[in-house]
């Protein structure tokens, strides 16, 4: 049921909102360091799948296994601790804390994991340099462009050395050139640090940065390569 060697695997997930089935028997897996694109029409259940995988919402039924542990067997506190230590997140927009400067934003996950301010900001700056946004360090999110903000968000997702990054339409608000640059930097950094990426996107050119793609239709994830 759990594909050999996978880091994160979900089996037969179901989730309904009222009468709306958002997930209807979805299965999914990702290996360490693998970039998997989750594609599919609007409303098909991509975000719901991602939120389940990341332990943000709980499915009505089905199993999710991360590094040999079942998410549903954990307490809420354990799940949030796992999210902080092992997961990174990039969303379409609005994820940076507006009151903090960009470098403080990037350092935030490290601070939450108990790293001292100076050390956290030093690591944060290194990631910002890698994402080519070191010059935004002292600015607040409201003072940088959309493309810069997304790179700051990617730096933040990578800063605490996660094992998995969940990205939901990370380039959705960017033009082609900026979107591609963000994807290039994200996938390059993820591959070189052996970080798995679950990338939700409806754009084929963005998905082309992945190693593999999975299509969600009507709440069911289909993996063409693994389909029989």
């Amino acid at each position: 049921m759990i594909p050999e060697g996978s880091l994160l695997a979900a089996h037969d997930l179901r989730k309904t909102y009222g009468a709306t089935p958002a997930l209807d028997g979805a299965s999914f897996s990702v290996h360490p360091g693998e970039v998997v694109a989750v594609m599919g029409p609007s409303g098909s259940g991509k975000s719901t799948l991602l939120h389940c995988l990341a332990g943000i919402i709980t499915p009505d039924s089905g199993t999710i296994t991360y590094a040999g542990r079942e998410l549903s067997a954990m307490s809420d506190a354990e799940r949030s601790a796992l999210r902080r230590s092992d997961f990174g997140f990039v969303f379409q927009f609005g994820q940076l804390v507006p009151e903090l400067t960009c470098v403080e934003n990037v350092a935030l996950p490290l601070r939450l994991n108990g790293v001292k301010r100076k050390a956290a900001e030093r690591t944060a700056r290194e990631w910002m340099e890698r994402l080519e946004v070191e010059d935004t360090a002292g600015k607040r999110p409201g003072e940088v462009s959309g493309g810069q903000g997304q790179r700051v968000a990617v730096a933040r997702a990578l800063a605490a050395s996660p094992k998995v990054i969940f990205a939901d339409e990370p380039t959705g608000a960017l033009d082609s050139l900026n979107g591609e640059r963000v994807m290039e930097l994200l996938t390059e950094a993820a591959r070189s640090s052996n970080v798995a990426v679950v990338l939700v996107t409806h754009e084929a050119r963005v998905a082309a940065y992945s190693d593999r793609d999975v299509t969600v239709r009507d709440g069911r994830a289909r993996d063409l390569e693994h389909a029989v």
Partner: protein
Amino acid sequence: MPEAPRRPTPQARGALETGTAGQGHLSDVYTCRVYTPCTVLPMSIGHTLLGLLESGPRHGYDLKRTFDEKFGQDRPLHYGQVYSTMSRLLKNGLVEVDGVESEGGPERKRYAITDAGITDVSRWLMQPEKPEPYLQSTLYTKVVLALLTDRSASDLLDSQRSEHLRMMRILTDRKRKGDLADQLICDHALFHLEADLRWLELTAARLGQLAKVVAP
């Protein structure tokens, strides 16, 4: 005067897919017309060589080398092509022989562009290309046929979709490793593939409607 479009060569396709197992299911014409990173169509070799002469007279060999370097990434010109093209241009008064050398070896002509040649290059450059319906009717035919014969059109579209994505991955990878010229060439192919993919998705979403029309 215009040369007949050449059939795609298997090498041209192979070159694009370096390092990947499983050859494309995209039809020959489709793949070659759009996705080979060969920037110069056979028909425009004459214009391209003419354009290269604008910076000064050159020998045939020199023209070939420059062409290959700038445009022939995966498909260098044959000498025969260069010489036949040059004699055609000569006959049409677009180039003239600027000198002949024969130091010990075979005769080497140096070509220069004429005023008529310059005009011809300008006209060619400024004239837009005919927008081609890249996704040729084959796919549409297949979809309709699948519906008519009670086969799964949506599976057909799905596998085409994943084939397109596979090609897009190869191009993206190539783009990532390549120089700016590679990037621009791959981007062109990527945008076309993306357009086709969108058509595939839209068609997949309209299969029910289409089925009612073609197989009531």
